[in-house]
């Protein structure tokens, strides 16, 4: 069968194409789909729907309540350079700046990154500590799925075959002095893929105590995941080295790493604690600067 290519100009057009061709391959930046096909990971589908010309998916803005709405076509480069993201959503800026190369970051989109659901995605844990949810749209309407439920496994999500990721929504930050950070174990300084990554968010009260702490991990389980065990240790605790060490150790225990070509499970597990602790420390510094 000949390959079909669609290039809808609006969300509605895209949704009707998807309704007619459920399971069609969606292309925005193409940095996962095309590279994957070239590497033999998965051939390109017979129906391609290119969504990069849809203008109203590129919006990046603060919501009235102080949350964030990120259109599916917002690129990593935009996230990396946006003053709003850098100042208030630092972990997402940290993660975006680490994705691939400048070319990847300019072509790749957040919607594509989320829909690709790689456990190694650098924006995954930052979005998880921000309690982000994914807006899915189809001809039947919209629904919102928390990111923690959206990810089902490597490359697997709850997105239906005729649904389009239209935005990522982030609720307002917790009350208090808030700092967040994403730290990745980096073998080299560019063109790297996460072997272990950790995001942390800390909200401090006026006395410097942790009101709320959140920790999420990248690349150490089939999906990016939050670590409730670590968060329980943080809530209400003094922001001390001991607290962060205990939370980081809990993160290490929660990881379910595998042996692969990039690292052994044993090393990954040990690194989770090291990296999670560094993420907590950096988030703490930023929270104190914000106070």
């Amino acid at each position, binding site marked *: 069968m000949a390959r079909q290519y669609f290039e809808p100009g609006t969300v509605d057009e895209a949704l009707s194409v998807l309704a007619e061709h459920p399971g069609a391959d969606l292309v925005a930046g193409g940095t996962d789909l095309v590279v994957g096909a*070239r*590497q*033999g990971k998965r051939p390109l589908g017979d129906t391609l729907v290119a969504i990069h010309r849809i203008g109203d998916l590129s919006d990046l803005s603060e919501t009235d309540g102080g949350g964030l709405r990120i259109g599916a076509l917002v690129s990593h480069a935009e996230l990396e350079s946006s003053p709003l993201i850098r100042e208030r959503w630092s972990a997402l800026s940290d993660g975006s700046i680490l994705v691939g190369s400048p070319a990847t970051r300019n072509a790749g989109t957040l919607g594509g990154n989320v829909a690709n659901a790689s456990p190694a995605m650098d924006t995954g844990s930052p979005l998880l500590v921000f309690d982000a949810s994914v807006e899915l749209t189809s001809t039947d309407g919209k629904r919102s799925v928390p990111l923690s439920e959206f990810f089902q496994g490597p490359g697997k999500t709850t997105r239906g075959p005729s649904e389009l990721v239209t935005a990522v929504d982030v609720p307002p930050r917790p009350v208090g002095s808030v700092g967040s950070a994403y730290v990745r*174990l*980096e*073998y*080299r*300084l*560019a*063109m790297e*893929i996460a072997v272990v990554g950790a995001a942390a968010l800390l909200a401090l009260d006026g006395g410097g105590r942790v009101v709320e702490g959140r920790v999420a991990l990248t690349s150490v389980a089939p999906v990016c995941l939050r670590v409730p065990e670590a968060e329980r240790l943080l809530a209400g605790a003094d922001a001390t080295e001991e607290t962060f060490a205990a939370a980081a150790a809990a993160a290490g225990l929660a990881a379910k790493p595998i042996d692969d*070509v*990039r*690292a*052994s499970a044993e*090393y990954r597990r*040990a*690194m989770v604690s*090291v*990296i999670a602790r560094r993420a907590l420390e950096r988030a703490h510094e930023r929270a104190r600067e914000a106070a």
Partner: protein
Amino acid sequence: MSTVVGKATIRADGVEKVTGTGRYTADLNLTGQLHAKFRYADHTHATITRIDASKARALRGVHAVITHEDVPDQKYGGMVQDRRLFAKEKVRWEGDVVAAVAAVTPEIAEEAASLIEVDYELLPPVVDFEASMAEGALLIHEDWESDSGDESMGRDRNTLGYSTIVKGDAGAAMAGADVVVRNRYVSDCSQGVPIEPRAVIAQWQGGKVTVWTSTQVPYAARAGVAHTLQVPESNVRIVVPLLGGGFGAKCDFHFEGHIAALARAARRPVKLVFSRREEFVAIGHRREGIVIEVETGASRDGTLVARRARLVLDKGAYCGEGGFFAQMAAMHACGPYKIENVSVESYLNYSNTQPSSSIRAPTAPQVCWALEQHMDELARALDLDPVDLRRKTLIEDGAEGPTRQVFENLAMKETLEQAVELIGYGQELPEDEAIGVACGWWPCFGAASGAYVNLNPDGTATIVTGAQENGTGAVMALPILAAEQLGLQPEDFSLLYQDTDAAPSDMGSCGSQTTFNSGRAVVEASIDLREQLLDAASSELEVDRGDLELVDGAVRVKGAPDKAVTIADLAGSGTTFHGKGSGDVPEAPACETEGCVGLLGNESFLSPQLITHAAHVKVDRGTGVVRVLRVAAAHDCGTIVNPIGANGQVTGGVVMGVGQALSESTQIDENGRQRNPFLLDYKLVTAADAPQIDIAWVETMTPNAGPKGSKGVGEPPCVATAGAIANAITKVIGRPVRRLPMTPERVWAATFGEEE
């Protein structure tokens, strides 16, 4: 006096490469051209019981499918003839080619290749190249005794190369030594990774074939096509468009025969372009893995009284051009040191993995990395500073090497002093930083070559050389040598260097010997041309030729510069001027070693290039991640012809050395397949990781050096970097890392794990 040698000269092919107007093999397209795809082995070790290509041949758009039945039954290989174009009885590694398809599109060719039915009887893969030497081990080449090959290889079953260096009585001297240190090191295999994956296009016209190909060795490629297809060399013309790097990965006859055979069968031009994955698993792309056991006995004052070593190298499935690796590794296990008694044994073994090739300084970075860590361990055992131990033990003028070759006029110790001074050895550093030092050497050997220098009617000239430019700039520096003889400027020359029908036969771009050998030929051809110009000017000016000199584009009377005739006027006078030359190949040094099998790897240390690198590193102890902050690189490569080119070689070599040290490893599974044959998980060093690099040249006039006292520059810059980094890491973490590359996980394990 020289006016251009040693001056910074911008290479002639630079602008086209940087601006994108240069044309590489994959950029060429011929009318009627078809696309080639290979059917690779489905198993890494198996007997072929049936090949049926009928479904592939029936596919619409397919013009030819060929297997071993469609080419002459000829074995080939540089030092052992152990290989065929297409696998016949057996497949021996994942990249063995079973069949080739030519079709109207690459996609159809790919589909056809997958339709070829191949039945196998599986054999256990031999992946452990050390265990493969054991008595009774399964043979990879069961008919090895009938494979023809170099008599001096010392072949025995799965060992295709065996070499020893024996000097004095190492056993007795070791027993009497004050201090003995013994270590075992293991280096993973790695890859050459030129940016340009291989491409080949072949077109027949009558009985003659032209092959455009990305090779470093066009004459070896021509000989290979002629031998495997049984046609005379005069019927084969190899043309190399711009070459996008090689690093030794393109240093042998590889796929020109397959594509020429395919084009003949298809009766159309056929083009092959490799994907990155194919390039990674292809023959010759790999640097060999090595197991290195080394033992040194020293007296209290640091004198080295004995060295024993046992080396086992992984050659992979076939010999290719790399049969000399065992000898080369043995020389690097001795290193540039004064040692009275030596006993080194070195084995080059077959395995069911990708064949290794001469990747930039084959065997040297790995063995140097091991030896230089071992020297630091010896220094610790002797309670000496590692630099002081080297000051005491490195070779100097008049020193006798492991093969009793006596070295004259070399600056080994000066490279050490310059490197430690540049890096600031001994300075106070934070506790997570340290400086390590490593020394090494690399051969420079003589080989036949020839060149023409033709004067054009406008007074410019064209150099015709068999040398191949692989990106190092060595060929691009040849005009400097010619210009110096002829009173012209390097820009006055064009170069014809990539056509086997044009120039005399040449070794090609390998062994850091282009300047050494092809440079000599260009100088001789230029002198021949100069003599012709002096004769012509002498009759024109009616002046004795002894009173004439070639300066600034003219032949003029010495002391009376106004009395002159320009070279352009002579060139336009209707006479043709064309020089040719070869020069005498310097004799190999006398090498004497009891029990030595084969001498190529030893004799090649005719006028060695000498190296010291010092590396300043920072170790993240929590994760084992190492960052190299600075490298000071001091080299004795003789006279530097073009500092821009030479500095570029060191910059690239050090960056490659950092990769070898920290991240570049091909991981092999239990069947001998690569686990990371692509750039995402084969970790090259990026520009962001490159350290500051400070360079020093110690220019000596070594006897038997090349033109103007030059030696090679291409390979030495990657030899000592990993050793220097290793010694710095050990200083920070207090433990040695005895696996190469020293990945974060290995550094972390060495820091916190049980000491070996």
